[in-house]
């Protein structure tokens, strides 16, 4: 049996961060992951992340994963791939399946960072080929570079459903609709708005009655549900699709913790390990970090991993009490700042009517995925101004502030905690550089010049699709709802290295449409 100071199970953001932290303190660390690629969920996440600088905001998930792996390995952690851990036993021993054989390892400390599994609701026809998890669709598109299907229906409007829905559009798939049995969109409004403006309809209080097809899915019958999630007769809709993606939530992958005998507690529908603030379970020296200890985000998983890694280093005497305490306080503060805002874990299940600033939350955003034209002006990021200026359509308290850090002119303020709504300071003088538009992970910032001459206005919007429009190309301007407004000519397409593959497309519309046009759509060839 091989022995390590620390064994980490799972090479996602939590596990890699734990390994980096502990190896940095001098521990001999082994990380085991069942996948052929390290990074856990991160290697499928090609979108820019929320958060603040210390949480790696505005960086795409894939890149964060690569950075973490490099850090852990540089510090000497050994990462074993294709190595599912099949058992975790008292005395901190693990059983690893490797190839046809098995290996036994013992750790003086163990960190379980196994992440989460997708929930799979059963409906008639759910086993038909063409029905797949949202994670499978991501794996196909981003790791194997194959489209999951031509026309897809997404079940689930949490962040996973919204993000994967957008990624399907980026891969050139059609998205027939996003369905959710809940009466409100579960994920961030900005993620929903990104989809809605490309013309994707949302059906809340709807679920799948059945998927049909003989050898594969060819269509879906969806139905409206009442408050108790029962189908209301006569309220069915049909969708012709060849693929159904399920994003019905994640459940912590706690099998190993349960097997080892860690004390568990019920939290809603899930069972979570009972943990200290640094993730130590009821078994001394066994820690849980990341989604396995409660579904959150990669940003929080990374901090939880570092907390657990540091705690293991302290426990085994690799770092002194003062050094440990100082680091612990910094990490706990960073974690607390992420847990601010209306989507914070402690607020799960609660319904807020207003933002922390006391502004009514948009109900249309929660039901249809977009802001009503008449309500946009209520939010502090939207102010009329002469000349070029940003319009920040970020209207929910989410832990995010890279827009503020991006602006060289200091036009954007996020004050009083990172979940505060961004505010446009019209005294600062926007230079029209577009950095705020490009960094915003919610793609919620637009630039407006309401007086571009000839009664026209110029709207600049983020664009992450192919093919890129050409200067002079005529297309259509779409409203926040995806509704077609008017023809629109592209006057500029900017793609600077600092934009990290988010192009900025500037198009011209009649002035009356300046506060309505939010997406430029290529006209289908006749």
């Amino acid at each position: 049996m091989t022995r390590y100071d620390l064994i980490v199970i799972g090479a996602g953001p939590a596990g890699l961060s734990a390994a980096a932290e502990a190896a940095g303190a001098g521990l001999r660390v082994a990380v085991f992951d069942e996948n052929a690629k390290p990074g856990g969920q991160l290697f499928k996440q090609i979108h820019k992340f929320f958060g603040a600088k210390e949480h790696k905001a505005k960086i795409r998930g894939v890149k964060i994963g690569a950075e973490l792996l490099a850090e852990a390995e540089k510090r000497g952690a050994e990462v074993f791939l294709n190595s599912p851990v099949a058992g975790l036993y008292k005395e901190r021993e693990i059983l690893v399946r490797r190839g046809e054989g098995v290996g036994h390892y013992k750790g003086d400390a163990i960190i379980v960072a196994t992440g989460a599994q997708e929930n799979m609701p059963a409906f008639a026809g759910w086993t038909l080929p063409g029905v797949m998890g949202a994670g499978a669709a991501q794996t196909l598109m981003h790791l194997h570079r194959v489209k999951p299907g031509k026309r897809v229906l997404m079940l689930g409007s949490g962040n996973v459903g919204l993000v994967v829905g957008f990624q399907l559009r980026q891969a050139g798939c059609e998205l027939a609709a996003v369905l959710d049995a809940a009466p409100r969109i579960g994920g961030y409004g900005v993620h929903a708005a990104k989809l809605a403006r490309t013309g994707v309809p949302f059906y809340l209080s709807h679920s799948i009655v059945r998927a049909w097809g003989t050898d594969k899915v060819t269509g879906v019958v969806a139905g409206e549900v009442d408050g108790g999630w029962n189908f209301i007769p006569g309220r069915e809709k049909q969708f012709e699709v060849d693929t159904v993606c399920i994003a019905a939530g994640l459940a912590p992958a706690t099998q190993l913790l349960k097997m080892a005998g860690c004390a568990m507690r019920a939290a809603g529908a899930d069972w979570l390990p009972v943990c200290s603030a640094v993730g130590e379970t009821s078994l001394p020296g066994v820690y849980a970090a990341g989604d396995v200890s409660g579904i959150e985000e990669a940003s929080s998983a990374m901090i939880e991993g570092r907390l657990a890694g540091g705690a293991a280093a302290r426990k085994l005497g690799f770092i002194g009490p003062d050094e440990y305490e100082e680091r612990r306080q910094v990490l706990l503060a960073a974690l607390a700042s992420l847990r601010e805002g209306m989507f914070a874990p402690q607020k799960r299940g609660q319904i807020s009517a207003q933002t922390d600033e006391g502004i009514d939350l948009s109900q249309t955003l929660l039901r249809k995925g977009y802001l009503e034209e008449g309500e946009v002006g209520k939010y502090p990021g939207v102010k009329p101004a002469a000349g070029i200026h940003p319009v920040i359509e970020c209207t929910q308290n989410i832990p995010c502030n890279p827009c503020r850090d991006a602006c060289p002119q200091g036009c954007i303020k996020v004050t009083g905690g990172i979940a505060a709504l961004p505010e446009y300071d019209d005294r600062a003088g926007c230079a029209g550089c577009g950095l705020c538009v490009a960094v915003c992970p919610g793609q919620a910032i637009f630039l407006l010049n309401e007086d571009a001459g000839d009664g026209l206005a110029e709207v600049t919007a983020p664009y992450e699709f192919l093919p890129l429009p050409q200067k002079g190309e005529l297309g259509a301007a779409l409203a926040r709802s995806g509704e077609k407004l008017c023809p629109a000519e592209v006057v500029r397409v900017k793609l600077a290295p600092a934009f990290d593959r988010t192009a900025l497309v500037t198009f011209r519309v009649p002035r009356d449409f300046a506060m309505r046009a939010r997406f430029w759509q290529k006209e289908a060839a006749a």
Partner: protein
Amino acid sequence: MRLTNHPILGPAAPGREVVFFLDGVAATGLEGEPLAAALKAAGVAVHRYTKKHRRPRGLFCAVGRCTDCVMVVNGRPNVRVCVTPLEEGMRVATQYGAGEGVK
């Protein structure tokens, strides 16, 4: 169905095209990609039929967890093709039930 270019990931790395056999018929895929990806790119949806009710199954989790995608590969049944790299000349067959009667 292949994503040769992508707005964020950029152009796909060129792979080596190889021939494999699906139920005896020649098809092509990229060497080293999961067999399931090659099948998806070729428009194949059904991987197997269940034992009792003969219901079709295809790719579901794509990461080796659910065993929905198993097929008969080089004569061996119950191979999870989503985590099996494609090799030149591989013989892949739709699996019926537990793969009884496989030669």
